[in-house]
């Protein structure tokens, strides 16, 4: 693409200053040129001003068409008593569903479980993903094969994963208990215990999502210009220091992204605990019932659409609170050096 260097073309510094006019022209341009320049600069102004909206509008259009109605409907349903069997038959309750949640021991239990499972699955998962991405970023033989291998858990069908984890964590015939038996430890009833079941679920979550996050980190790492590393090693930085002072700062936006997404994922955790026993009760004493499972059980098993919608909105509010906490935290740490999350 060849371009003519029109002086009138305003540079769009990312600061997006208003297009500067080439004032005080020394040589008198002809009328036609002036018109052309003006037309062009008008066009540019227009382009600068409105193109961002054009770029974001497809997302918002689709969201408005297919995301907004369900969202509003769910909010509306949360204020009603209605059954999933006949969702069109609603009785107005106002905020009763929410006040009821406040006094609902099962809700708080699910919240607790979601929190503990979220912590013990998300933190190791992201740290391991960061390490793996770093390692994959070396000059490697077969890096392609490793990448595909690490991402397979994300693609593996739930049916296959269920079979395998049932085989591993089975009480009487599970492989882990068999291995424990070899070293003289009594079998563990993984699914029945509170922390054992939560540990088991965390391993499933970690297995499933580590490769996924690795890949996201890796893509960001590859965009770090090489000469940063070169100059760092010229300054005598060790591998660790390069990782610490070059890689990590460059990855900051992506790390923020994975933390946000994992937090949302952990709050809505649903598939993995369901996979452990195949029923949404989250254990006979709800010992590993997460909010996602509680929502599912309330809506799809007990058929209380309104109450389930209230749980969904409670989860939504919870995430907003967590988001505010994150924001406060970054403010307090004072790391927000011009980079908004």
């Amino acid at each position: 693409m060849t371009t003519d260097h029109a002086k009138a073309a305003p540079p769009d510094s990312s600061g997006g200053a208003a297009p500067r006019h080439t004032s005080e022209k020394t040589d008198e341009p002809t009328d036609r040129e002036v018109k052309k320049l003006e037309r062009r600069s008008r066009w540019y102004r227009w382009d600068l001003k409105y193109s961002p909206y054009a770029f974001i509008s497809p997302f918002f259009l689709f969201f408005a068409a297919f995301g907004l109605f369900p969202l509003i409907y769910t909010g509306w349903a949360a204020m009603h008593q209605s059954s999933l069997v006949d969702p069109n038959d609603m009785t107005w309750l106002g905020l009763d569903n929410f006040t009821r949640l406040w006094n609902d021991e099962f809700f708080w239990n699910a919240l607790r479980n979601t929190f503990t499972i979220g912590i013990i699955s998300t933190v190791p998962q992201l740290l391991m993903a960061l390490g793996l991405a770093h390692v994959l970023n070396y000059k490697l033989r077969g890096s392609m094969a490793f990448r595909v291998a690490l991402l397979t858990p994300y693609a593996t069908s739930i049916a296959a994963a269920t079979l395998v984890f049932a085989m591993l964590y089975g009480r009487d015939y599970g492989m882990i208990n068999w291995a424990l038996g070899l070293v003289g430890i009594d079998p563990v009833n993984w699914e029945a215990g509170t922390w054992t079941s939560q540990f088991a679920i965390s391993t499933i979550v970690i297995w499933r999502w580590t490769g996924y996050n690795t890949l996201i980190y890796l893509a960001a790492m590859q965009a770090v210009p090489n000469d940063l590393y070169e100059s760092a090693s010229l300054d005598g930085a060790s591998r660790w220091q390069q990782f610490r002072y070059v890689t990590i700062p460059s990855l900051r936006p992506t790390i923020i992204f994975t933390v946000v997404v994992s937090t949302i994922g952990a709050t809505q955790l649903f598939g993995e605990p369901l996979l452990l026993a195949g029923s949404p009760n989250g254990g006979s004493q709800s010992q590993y019932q997460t909010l996602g499972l509680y929502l599912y059980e309330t809506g799809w098993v007990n058929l209380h659409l309104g109450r389930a919608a209230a749980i969904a909105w409670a989860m939504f509010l919870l995430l907003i609170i967590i988001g505010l906490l994150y924001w406060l935290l970054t403010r307090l740490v004072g790391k927000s050096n011009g980079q908004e999350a």
Partner: protein
Amino acid sequence: MASTTDVVATDTAAEPEPAPRRGARKPRGKANQAGGHLRAGWLTYLILIVFSVGSLFPLVWSAIAASHTNARLSEPTPPFWFGDRLFDNLDMAWNDANLGKAMFNTIFVAGTITVSTVLFATLAGFAFAKLRFRAKNLLLLLVIGTMMVPPQLTVVPLFMAIAELEWTDQLQAVILPTMVSAFGVFFMRQYLVQALPSELIEAARMDGANSLRVVWHVVFPAARPAMAVLGMLTFVLAWNEFFWPIIALTQQNPTVQVALTGLGQGYVPDRGVIMAGALLGTLPLLIAFVLFGRQIVGGIMNGALKG
């Protein structure tokens, strides 16, 4: 704000100021075949092999399970090596679940969703990362906010809409609601903030490029690895989507996941066949991985702004 004066791409690596903002260097930063700077030792390989084996184990085991009869799978000790029933089971799963049509449908569905998600996410992500416009931060928060809505309940109102439109059992019912993703927009924004030097955009602007041209010649090349990653993740998600398709579609016009729900009928499901079906359902994804993966390994920032 480093305002670049030497926008003409030169290959001088010298950088006068001590480490300014990232990317405030040659617009044509050498492709970071990342590891360029480091070589892997045996420990690296060991770590990767351990993780790969752990990751692959369930998939491999499902292939082993798919090669046995149901009776063999019920025996006290599970099989640890392949049996001889693999092709029989695959054949049975393929025919029982009518997988041919389902594959075709799903490739179409997941392909459409992937292309549109990646395209729109890149455009919006670029705008959020690099352009100025009114209410930008608020709109970005809104995007992130939409990710926070638990998906399990939305199927009820969504089905109301689909029923109203008379789209039940038609593919657009599973395509249109997922044509864009907030996750994708946010992902692209975070990637481009770091990976796309503003100077490149400015340089293009100086050369009189309009927005579309900037997107085509600067943004897309810079975003390519992230587009490939997003494409991969979206494709898998769309391919494995289950909860909504099972409500919106039936076996006459199914996606792979919907077709697979037909396997394992009877009071005694044949797990060998179920596993064979699951395996068939996963294979296309592995192929897609390799295709997308080449993109990720391949191009970084090649030839922005061919002058």
